[in-house]
Structures are given as C-alpha cells and as structure tokens.
C-alpha cells in the first residue's frame, strides 16, 4: 500500500467549530472547542482536545512506538510493526467485563495517514503538541490556522552516534536549537577531540547533556547512539507523559538529571502495581507486562534504553522470554 492509494475518510465540510470529522474503519473522530469525541460500534468516548492532540502527536511521530500507546484508560493503539490495532476499552477491565471493548486491525500506512490528517486539521496555529504547557499556546477554541512545522518535526535517529561525521549533528543556536529555559545552567562545552589524520570519522564525541538541554520537545525519545539493537534514546521531560505506554518488551530508564515519578500499572488491566521515584543516577527496568506514565515537575533528562530487536515481542508474548529483565 502506498500513500497514493490511501484515501483518508473525512467529512467534505467542516463542522460548526471549523474542524473536519474523520472515520477509520468503524471508529469516528470529531472535535469541538474543548473536546474530542471518539465513537465505535459499541460505545463512545470523550477526551480533552489538549490531551488527545498531545497523545496523537507522539503516536504519529513515533510511528506507533513499541507496544501500546494508551491515549488514556480507554482509547489507544497497539503496534504490530506493519499493522496497528486501534482499540477502545481493550485494556480496561470494566469495558471488557461489560463487553463494550472494541478493536480493529489496520494496515500501518492507513492509520498513519489518517492520524496525520487529524493532527494537522485539529492543531491550531499557536499550539505545539510536543511542547511543555508553559511553552505553547492553547489547544482549545475554534479552528484558527495550522501549525504544520511543529507537528512534522523530523525524528532524530542516529545510525551510529550523534557527532560522527555523516550522522546526526549536534544542536546549536545556529541550527535552531537554543538552550531551553530550564537548562540554562547546563555546561555547553563540547569535548576536545584529537583525531589523527585518517581517523576523523572514527574518533568522535559530543556533549550529550548540552544536546539534551537544546531539545525543543518533551517526552520524545530519539536515538543518539546504537550498539547493534541497543538504542540510547534520551529525551527531555516536563509535566506529564501525554500517553500511558504499555510495553511489549522490557525497557530501561536512566535518570540523567532531576527527578521523575512513574505510575506503573498492569498493562492489560490497569491495576496499580507501583510508583517509581527516579533521581539522578537511578536506573530502573520497566517490565514487559506493565504500562507507565511519568510526571516531571522540572524539565529533566531521561535516558530511555531500548532493545530494538524485532523478535522480542513474540519471544515475550509466547513466554519464551520473561517479562522482567533479570533473575536474582
């Protein structure tokens, strides 16, 4: 399926608030000044437009990420890496017991283009869904322009490491990445690198903390170094992770600066399992059968460490690999 083959199903006309309405399979989507309304054959759901757009932005930018992206306790997506489940109530005990849960499996290009269209149509000119609430305008109100530049940022994915010649570049004022207001005290000195002639492409280093201090987005892991399938995906966090991430593999967090509190629930039922308080230097695994949401009271630096191996979800789902990382 190519993008040219995909017809995003949306209303011919805008509604009274100026927004198009959309359909994907049996799911319907509409918004007004404050809220988003999601419908499916066995029910319907309402979300704040602000929360919905922040979650939608991550789902689109991450191409549905690893595992489950819960927009909230009811609606979300599950990535099968080629297809995506779009669901309502699937990971909510009450919906399941009431048999009101519903899901559809959709080819990735179709849901990708539909979600991109919703994001573009429903994001107004002063709202940046990737930004902290202190750094953006409101998501609410009648249709008022668009913010295509904010919602189509290129996702950074170093093939080897940032700063290696030919790979991703460091961030600077000149490249459009000023130091964030909450990281103005972070040392910006780059490491001294002395490469002998002929080894300029092999002898490389960069200031990771300075690089992160210049990130213009929140809650958006991106690859800075790759050791085969071992991916360092640091990110800067402020306020609340706009999704509840359900794992399909173990992932690890290393708190590089400041502090984040994680609320951890059972992935499938939402039952509370723990609260994890992470301070600078702390390392914590997130098991493969949980879902989590982070709270960062001050902009912080978090290293998300992922194993990108394609066979992991199957190994874990089949029970061949445990849901937690080590036995002791």
């Amino acid at each position, binding site marked *: 399926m190519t993008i040219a083959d995909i017809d995003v199903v949306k209303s011919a006309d805008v509604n009274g608030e100026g927004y198009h309405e959309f359909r994907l399979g049996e799911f319907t989507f509409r918004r007004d000044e404050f809220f988003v309304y999601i419908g499916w054959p066995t029910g319907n759901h309402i979300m704040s437009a602000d929360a919905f757009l922040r979650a939608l932005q991550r789902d689109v930018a991450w191409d549905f990420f690893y595992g489950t992206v819960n927009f909230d306790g009811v609606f979300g997506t599950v990535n099968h890496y080629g297809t995506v489940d779009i669901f309502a109530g699937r990971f909510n005990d009450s919906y399941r017991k009431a048999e009101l849960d519903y899901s559809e499996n959709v080819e990735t290009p179709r849901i990708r283009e539909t979600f991109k269209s919703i994001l573009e149509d429903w994001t107004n000119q002063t709202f940046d869904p990737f930004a902290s609430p202190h750094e953006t305008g409101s998501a609410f109100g009648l249709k008022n322009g668009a913010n295509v530049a904010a919602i189509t940022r290129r996702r950074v994915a170093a093939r080897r490491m940032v700063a290696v010649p030919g790979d991703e570049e460091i961030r600077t004022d000149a490249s459009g990445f000023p130091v964030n207001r909450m990281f103005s005290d972070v040392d910006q000195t780059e490491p001294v690198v002395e490469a002998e002639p002929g080894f300029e492409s092999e*002898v490389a280093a960069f200031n990771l*903390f300075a690089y992160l*201090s210049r990130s213009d987005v929140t809650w958006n892991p991106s690859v800075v*170094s790759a050791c085969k399938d071992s991916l360092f995906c640091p990110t800067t966090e402020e306020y609340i992770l706009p999704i509840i991430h359900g794992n399909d593999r173990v992932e690890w967090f290393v708190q590089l600066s400041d502090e984040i509190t994680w609320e951890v629930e059972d992935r499938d039922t939402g039952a509370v*399992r723990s609260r994890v308080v992470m301070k*600078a230097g702390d390392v914590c695994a997130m098991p493969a059968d949980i879902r989590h949401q982070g709270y960062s009271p001050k902009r912080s630096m978090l290293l998300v460490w*992922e194993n990108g191996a394609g066979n992991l979800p199957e190994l874990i789902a089949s029970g061949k690999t445990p849901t937690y990382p080590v036995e002791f």
Partner: protein
Amino acid sequence: MTTGKPSAGGGVERSSYVTRFASLDDYEKGRVELINDDPRHYAFSNIFDVASRSKPWEKVAVGKNMEYVLEAVRAEGTSEWRTCAHDEFAVCLDGEVTVELVKLDSSPLPADAEGSVALAGEPQGPRMGRIFLKRGHQALLPAGSAYRFIATQTGVLMMQTIAGPDTQFRWAEICQTV
C-alpha cells in the same frame, strides 16, 4: 522567588532553574514504592551508588536487556587496554576521563564476537587519537580499536555495550529487594 514573564497558562515561571545532576560525592537514590509487585522485577539501582562500591574499572551491569548491558564503571587511575568487535559507547557521568584510541593491526576477536576483552600489554597499531571527556560527554569506542581510559581524579562512566567476559552481575547486591 517566582518572577519572569507570564506564561500561556496564566502563572509565572521562576527567573532561573537549577538542573540537578548527581556525582559520587552527591547523589540521592529514589526507589520503587510497591503497591502490588516484586521490586526485583525493576532491578532498581543507582549508578553512583554502584560505582562508589566498585573497584577501579570494574564493569558492573546496572541494566541488561537480553545480551545488551549498561555498565557502571568507577574511573580511577589508568585502565587496562581493551578491544571490542562492535561499537561501544562511554558516557562520562562524573569527573574527567581521557580516552586513548589505537587502531589494532590485528584484532584478537572474531568479527561477530560480543562484548569487550582486555588486551595483554600494549596494543600494536597506529594511534587514532584522544578524547577528553567531562561530565555529560559521550564518546564512540569504535569497533576494532583498542582503547584505555585515564582518570586523574575518581569519576564515573556509563558504558553502552554487550555483556562480555568481564561484565560483573551483582543484582542482589546493587538492587532494591524490599
């Protein structure tokens, strides 16, 4: 003191913020607050706490995902020379560490070997260069090179690599268990 320009949300922000990094001399651990789970499932530790109890240049795993590991390394003095068949990465989290790199004329490792090994004696091959790391700096340790670290003051490195013969696993010792 809250000053600064009014934000879009209606409140005001501080005029400046302090970023809280940690070090061997100044770290504070968080924890897993259990409600209905086993703390061992989280393998919760702190890199500075681990390094404070390690011998110089010990490679202590603080994270493991299948064959891949994160290692906490106490940087103190001069390390042995090591080599690896795949790229590794070192992040300096405390102190100042110099990295010396040599392109090996002949690697003792097969191309598909995983994890780093120590070299006996001085590496044979042309010098590739040096890197001077401070806190927050990340260096590439390229596949097929020999490398060693020099730390005139005690510091901490975090390694992104694959478990090798010298990786130490001490989960019961370093992780929260209750």
